[in-house]
C-alpha cells in the first residue's frame, strides 16, 4: 500500500466495483442436470471513504453475495473489485487481497451463531489478533479492554461466555471483534435484523458513533428500508441479482425512480394508522436460475413496455448522483 493512497480525499472512492458477476453451479436433485445460478448480475458501484452504502433487497436479491465478494470471502466470476487501489479480482487478485485484508472486516447477522460458545468473550474478540500474530500478551489484553470500552461493554465481560449475553450485547461483542485489527471498511450483513426494536436503535447508533470516531466506511446490507435510512449515506437497491437503482439517501427515499423501488417503499407498513397503503404488488421474485432476457422486474412491473421483456436496461445516470436501470428513463 503506497503512502499516496493513504491521503484519500473524502470524495475519492475507496471501493470500486465494476460489472461484477457471481455465478454458482447448482444441480437440481440427485444427479440432475447442472445449472447456473447468477446471484450477482453485472453490478457496479463505488463507496467513498467514511461513508455508508446501504444495500437493500429482498431474499435472493444477491445483496449478501455482494457483501461476501467485496471482502474476498468468495471469488468473483467476472468483473472488477478494487479496494484501496488494489484490484482483488483477476490473475493477481490473491496477492492484492493479502495486502488489504487487514483493512476489511465483516459483522454477521446472527450474534448467536457467529460467536464460538466455548470461547470466552475476550478470546472471541482477540481471535483476529491471534490470527494476525505478533502481539504481546499485555498488548492483546489492553486491546481487548479498549475494544470492550469502545462498544460500550464493561471490561469484566472478557472473562464470561457468549451465552450469558442478550442478542444486543452479543452483537456489540461481534462488532468489537470486527474492530480488533483497526479495519477501514466493514461489511455489516443484516446486523440488526435479529434484534428487538429497542435493541436495534442502540446498535445503529453505536455503528454511527464508531464511523464518526474511527472514520470507518460501511457496506450495510439489510432488507429493512427504514433501518437503512437511519444509517446510510447512499442507497443501492438490488432485485434478482441486478442493481436497479442507486442514489444519495434522501434522493432515493423522497424521489425513487425505479418502479421496483417505488413498490418496495410503498409496501412497508408504517406506524401510522391514518396511512392507506395502495394494493400490494402482485407476483413474486423471479427465479435467478436460467433467467429470462430483459428486465428482471418486467413480469411484476406496472409500467412494463415491450422493450422491457427483450432488453436488459443498462444503468443510466439521471443527475444528483442518481443511477437507474429502467427503460422509462
Amino acid at each position, binding site marked *: 500500500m503506497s503512502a499516496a493512497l493513504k491521503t484519500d480525499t473524502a470524495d475519492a472512492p475507496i471501493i470500486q466495483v465494476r460489472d461484477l458477476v457471481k455465478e454458482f453451479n447448482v444441480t437440481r436433485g440427485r444427479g440432475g442436470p447442472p445449472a447456473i445460478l447468477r446471484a450477482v448480475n453485472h453490478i457496479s458501484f463505488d463507496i467513498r471513504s467514511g461513508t455508508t452504502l446501504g444495500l437493500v433487497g429482498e431474499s435472493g436479491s444477491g445483496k449478501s453475495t455482494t457483501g461476501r465478494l467485496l471482502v474476498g470471502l468468495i471469488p468473483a466470476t467476472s468483473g472488477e473489485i478494487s479496494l484501496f487501489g488494489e484490484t482483488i479480482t483477476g490473475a493477481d487478485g490473491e496477492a492484492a487481497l493479502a495486502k488489504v485484508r487487514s483493512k476489511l472486516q465483516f459483522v454477521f447477522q446472527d450474534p448467536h451463531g457467529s460467536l464460538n460458545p466455548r470461547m470466552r468473550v475476550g478470546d472471541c474478540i482477540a481471535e483476529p489478533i491471534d490470527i494476525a500474530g505478533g502481539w504481546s500478551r499485555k498488548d492483546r489484553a489492553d486491546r481487548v479492554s479498549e475494544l470492550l470500552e469502545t462498544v460500550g461493554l464493561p471490561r469484566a465481560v472478557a472473562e464470561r461466555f457468549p451465552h450469558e449475553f442478550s442478542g444486543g450485547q452479543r452483537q456489540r461483542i461481534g462488532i468489537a471483534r470486527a474492530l480488533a485489527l483497526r479495519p477501514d471498511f466493514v461489511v455489516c450483513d443484516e446486523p440488526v435484523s435479529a434484534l*428487538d*426494536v429497542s435493541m436495534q436503535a442502540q446498535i445503529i447508533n453505536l455503528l454511527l458513533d464508531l464511523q464518526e470516531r474511527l472514520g470507518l466506511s460501511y457496506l450495510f446490507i439489510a432488507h429493512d428500508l427504514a433501518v437503512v435510512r*437511519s444509517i446510510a449515506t447512499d442507497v443501492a437497491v438490488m432485485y434478482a441479482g441486478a442493481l436497479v437503482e442507486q442514489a444519495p439517501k434522501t434522493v432515493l427515499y423522497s424521489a425513487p425512480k425505479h418502479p421496483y423501488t417505488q413498490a418496495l417503499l410503498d409496501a412497508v*407498513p408504517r406506524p401510522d394508522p391514518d396511512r392507506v397503503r395502495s394494493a400490494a404488488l402482485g407476483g413474486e421474485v423471479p427465479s435467478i436460475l436460467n433467467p429470462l432476457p430483459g428486465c428482471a422486474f418486467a413480469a411484476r412491473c406496472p409500467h412494463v413496455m415491450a422493450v422491457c421483456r427483450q432488453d436488459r436496461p443498462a444503468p443510466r445516470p439521471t443527475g444528483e448522483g442518481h443511477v437507474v436501470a429502467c427503460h422509462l428513463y
Partner: protein
Amino acid sequence: MAVPLLEVDDLTVRFRTDAGWMTAVDRVSLAVGEGEALGIVGESGSGKSVTALSILRLHAAATTRMPTGKIHYGGKDLLTLPTREMRQIRGGEIAMIFQDPMSSLNPVLTIADQIGESLRLHQGVDQATARKRAIELLDLVRIPDAARRVDEYPHRLSGGMRQRVMIAIAIACRPKLLIADEPTTALDVTIQAQILDLLRDLQRELGMSVILITHDMGVIAEFARRVMVMYAGRVVETAPVGQMFRRPVHPYTEGLLTAIPKLDVDVRRLPTIAGSIPDPTAVIPGCRYSPRCPQVQESCRRDSPALLPAGPEREARCPPRVAAMAKETVA
C-alpha cells in the same frame, strides 16, 4: 363491545426452566368482539405468543404449570374443557397460523392432504369432497392455478405461497376466530403486503375475528383496530389503534414508537430505550419497566402497578402517567 366472542380473564402461565419457575404470562386479560381485529404487540419475551398458544391450549404440558385464570368462549371455559371438546374447537372454531410456514406444513403430504385433513376431522367429509373444497380454498387465498397446485408438495411453493396454504388450512372450517402469530415476519416486504391484504379481505368476507400478534408497529397500524402492548409478561397498555399511535400513555409504548427507524424522514440519531429486555427469570420488584424507564419514580420500583383506566376504551399500567393525564383533562 356487546358480548365479546372470546374473553380472557386473568390468565397466568408459568414454565419450568433450569433456573426455576418463570412467569411467561402474568394475569393477562383481553376481549375480542365479533369481526374485530385485535393486535398484540411486544418484543421477545413479552408473553404475546404464549398468550395466544394458551388460548388454544397448545403449550408443552410437561414444562408448564396448568395456566390459571379463565378463557370464556361460547359459554365455556377453554382452560377446563375436556380434551375431546377442545379438539373440536381447535382448528374448527378457533384456528391459528404461525410465523414459519415451512415448519408448520408437513413436507411429505400434498397440499390437498393437508387442507383436507382439517375438513375430514371437523366436518367428516370424504376424500373427493375434501379435495374439491381444497381447490376452492386455494382459490379463496388467491393461489393461481389451484387445481394443479393442490397436488403439489410444500417444497415446490415459495414462502408467500406456503403462508397462503397455511391460511387456507386455517379457514377451511370457517373459524369464528383466527389467531395469527407473526404471520408475515418471515416474508419479504412485497409478499408481506400481499398477505396482509389477503387477511384483511378474508376477515371481511368471512366475518372472522382476528388476533394478530406481531413485533412490528407498522403491521399493527395497518391491520388492528384495537391494540394491546405487552412487556415482560404483562399488558402495559390497551387502546384503540389511532389513539395509541397519536398519544401513547405508557412510557414503554412511547419509547418503542420513538425508537423505530423512520422511513419517511431523516433523523440524525435514533432515540433509544436504555438497557436490555429483562431475563424472563429475573425478579423485578414494582413495575417491570422501571429499570429502563426514563420517567421512573420512587414508587415505581416498590409497588407493582395496576392496569388503570386511561380514558374511553383505554387502560395503562403506569399510575404516574395516568394521574398526570387525569390532571390535564380536568385543567
